[in-house]
């Protein structure tokens, strides 16, 4: 299918051909021809953000909540540089995103023209791939290639930089074809011999554990279904990274909770003591492993990952399987069944006995016994009041994010959007807007902190304009809580610039934007207030005043191992001050 059209027309045509329905963007000089084409069509809905970074994070939230590629459109120069954070965020968390940037006309490139920036140079290290389109006849092919690269293999962000004269020029449009990409062909099917070996190792396991990650979510709903089948078939315990929450239901009895720095006591101890670890689509991130040379010392490790460079990067795998999670799990299940394998019931029973003893420590326990709302209680209550509803949760970054991961239970994939790898404050509100755009009737909540929310608060205006009824649930403790917690751990409780002295009145702020503002300060009023927030028609900014000095536990202090966790009841001022030794101090 080839047709003559202008570059700007090609952009819109390519988006339509790729099945794009929603686009997040902000106009500017170098993308005006594309915006002119958008004006003359009604197949794609454009969501006008308030800062380009908002477009990027919205596209991420959209992608994460749908499994589709998120699309952003921004202008040259500052438009493109404002996209650097979302692009890096999407790269770290493997989120498929196509970002189209305008560029100054080709004859002006290199002349320091107005709003010129070396976009492909700047975004090269923060994209999976990027292109500068110099000939309009290449544009159609490159756009379709961009979508292919973004969603194939380990998903990620790509940038297509289009000079303004190329947008005006007329050329031949090439539609999406099924021709193989000339170089990029990721391996999807796992090696049968490795799968066979993995299944045999699993069958012999006495103290096994599934350790799953964002790769399961990225692989699609089928991967989650297959994971559930395999976990139930084997009867093994399962834990997940921050990015993988929801792939396995949190309400299930085989679920140990999240692992890692703020994971549960049972998940981390089971990781430490296991004899066979089955890593499904996770990447042994430093938040997960704790001290590497003491990480799960006695176990054989199976690692399933679509990115060959993830295997043996941080932790050596005994069996590495390169492939897509769904494909590999399907093959594993088939191999398991055809060989008639059964898990070692007796060994599992005693393993579960050990796990139950760790569970009995109740590492997420807290006591809400005054009118001051504990942040843990706030999240738990939010979870209870929204149960059974069609809920999508995003977060900003900090203590509230960890509490959300700990106390909000996710039973389905694609319901949880958080900035895991990069840890981007300001991610949550635009991500919720992205999710709400895709799921108009769902309840999309950004669990936020008082500091994080101010990083992209302007996007509330986007929500108002496009009638996206997102709810922002702020755990307001007037501190950058996680910064303060680390200052307590590492820097003698000297709280250098982590107290926000002049917070806005969030209720008035909401009203100024045309949203609903709410405040709750008493535990006894929390349920009713949350119900009112859910019932409210439009966007809500909910100022939940919580205990100012609460900290996030349990915790593996940096430089420590999985079995050296600091539990809430042991976290005295003294224990906090001495939790991290000299070597751990230098770690992030």
């Amino acid at each position, binding site marked *: 299918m080839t047709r003559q059209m202008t570059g700007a027309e090609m952009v819109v045509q390519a988006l339509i051909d790729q099945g794009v329905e929603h686009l997040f963007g902000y106009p500017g000089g170098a993308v005006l021809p594309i915006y002119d084409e958008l004006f003359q069509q009604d197949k794609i809905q454009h969501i006008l953000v308030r800062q380009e970074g908002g477009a990027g994070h919205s596209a991420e939230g959209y992608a994460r909540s749908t499994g589709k590629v998120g699309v952003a459109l921004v202008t040259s120069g500052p438009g493109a540089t404002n996209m650097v954070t979302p692009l890096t965020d999407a790269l770290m968390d493997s989120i498929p995103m196509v970002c189209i940037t305008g560029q100054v006309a080709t004859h002006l490139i290199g002349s320091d023209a107005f709003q010129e920036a070396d976009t492909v140079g700047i975004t090269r290290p923060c994209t*999976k791939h990027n292109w500068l389109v110099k000939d309009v006849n290449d544009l159609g092919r490159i756009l379709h290639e961009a979508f292919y690269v973004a969603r194939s293999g380990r998903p990620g962000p790509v940038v297509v930089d289009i000079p303004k004269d190329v947008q005006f020029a007329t050329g031949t449009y090439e539609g999406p074809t099924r021709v193989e990409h000339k170089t990029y062909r990721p391996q999807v099917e796992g090696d049968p011999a490795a799968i066979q070996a993995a299944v045999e190792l699993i069958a012999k396991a006495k103290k096994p554990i599934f350790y799953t990650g964002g790769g399961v979510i990225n692989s699609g709903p089928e991967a989650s279904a297959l994971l559930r089948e395999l976990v139930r078939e084997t009867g093994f315990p399962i834990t997940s990274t921050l990015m993988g929450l929801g792939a396995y239901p949190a309400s299930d009895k085989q679920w140990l909770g999240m692992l890692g720095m703020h994971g549960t006591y049972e998940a981390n101890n089971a990781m430490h003591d296991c004899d066979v670890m089955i890593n499904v689509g996770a990447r042994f991130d430093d938040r997960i492993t704790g001290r590497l040379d003491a990480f799960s010392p006695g176990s054989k490790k199976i690692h399933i990952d679509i990115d*060959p460079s993830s295997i043996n990067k941080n932790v050596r795998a005994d069996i590495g399987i390169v492939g897509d999670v769904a494909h590999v799990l399907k093959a594993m299940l088939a191999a398991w069944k055809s060989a008639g394998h059964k898990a070692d019931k007796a060994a599992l029973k005693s393993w579960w006995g050990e796990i139950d003893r760790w569970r009995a420590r109740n590492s997420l326990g807290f006591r809400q016994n005054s009118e001051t709302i504990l942040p843990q209680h706030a999240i738990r209550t939010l979870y209870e009041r929204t149960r059974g509803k069609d809920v999508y949760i995003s977060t900003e970054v900090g203590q509230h994010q960890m509490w959300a991961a700990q106390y909000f239970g996710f039973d389905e994939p694609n319901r949880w959007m958080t900035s895991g790898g990069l840890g981007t404050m300001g991610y949550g509100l635009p991500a919720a807007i992205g999710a709400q755009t895709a799921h108009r009737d769902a309840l999309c909540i950004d669990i936020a902190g008082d500091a994080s929310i101010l990083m992209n608060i302007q996007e509330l205006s986007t929500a108002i304009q496009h009638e996206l009824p997102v709810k922002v649930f702020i755990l307001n403790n007037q501190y950058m809580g996680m910064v303060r917690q680390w200052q307590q751990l590492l820097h003698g409780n000297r709280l250098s610039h982590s107290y926000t002295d002049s917070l806005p009145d969030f209720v008035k702020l909401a009203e100024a934007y045309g949203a609903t503002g709410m405040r709750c300060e008493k535990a006894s009023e929390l349920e009713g207030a949350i119900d009112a927030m859910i019932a409210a028609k439009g966007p809500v900014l909910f100022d939940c005043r919580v205990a100012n000095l609460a900290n996030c536990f349990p915790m593996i202090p940096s430089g420590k191992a999985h079995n050296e966790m600091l539990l809430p009841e042991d976290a005295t001022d003294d224990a906090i001050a001495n939790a991290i030794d000299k070597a751990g101090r230098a770690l992030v």
Partner: protein
Amino acid sequence: MQPGSVYAIKEGKDKTEQHTLSVLVDNEPGVLARVIGLFSGRGYNIESLTVSETEHEKHRSRITVVTMGPPQVIEQIKAQLERMVPVHRVIDLTVTGKAIERELLLIKVRGAGDDRVEALRLADAFRARVIDATTESFVFELTGRTDKLDQFILLMQPLGLVEVSRTGVAAITRGPEAT
């Protein structure tokens, strides 16, 4: 720590190895920056780097990069290179063995009297060619393995070495097959 069961990367403890990698890439704009950016961004070493288009019709280039690191880091470098979109293939010539490596050196030496005669005599011994001469200087051209070039430069130092330009390593496997 429990010996034999620790999976940490022991950087600095494992022996550092030198590997010559041949990277076949699509000759698209920015491809070299991408490869170099990977090395600098992830803290890998580049000992030598050469790049040139090698198959004009197919728009393919061959990047030959000599790198140093412990075995695990070398493996990681290869995996990182292989997953880049415009990379066709990565061949570790140090692992495949039987590779021939050559480098070209241009070296300017200035001197008179015995030094000048000695420089010319050594050049002859190394089979370097004189490609420019004035009454007080020579420019020699020398091809060979990196260590041979290093040795020649060392010998020229006391004889009036002015400046050096070298290409970096180009490498290819022996035998009839393509890699």
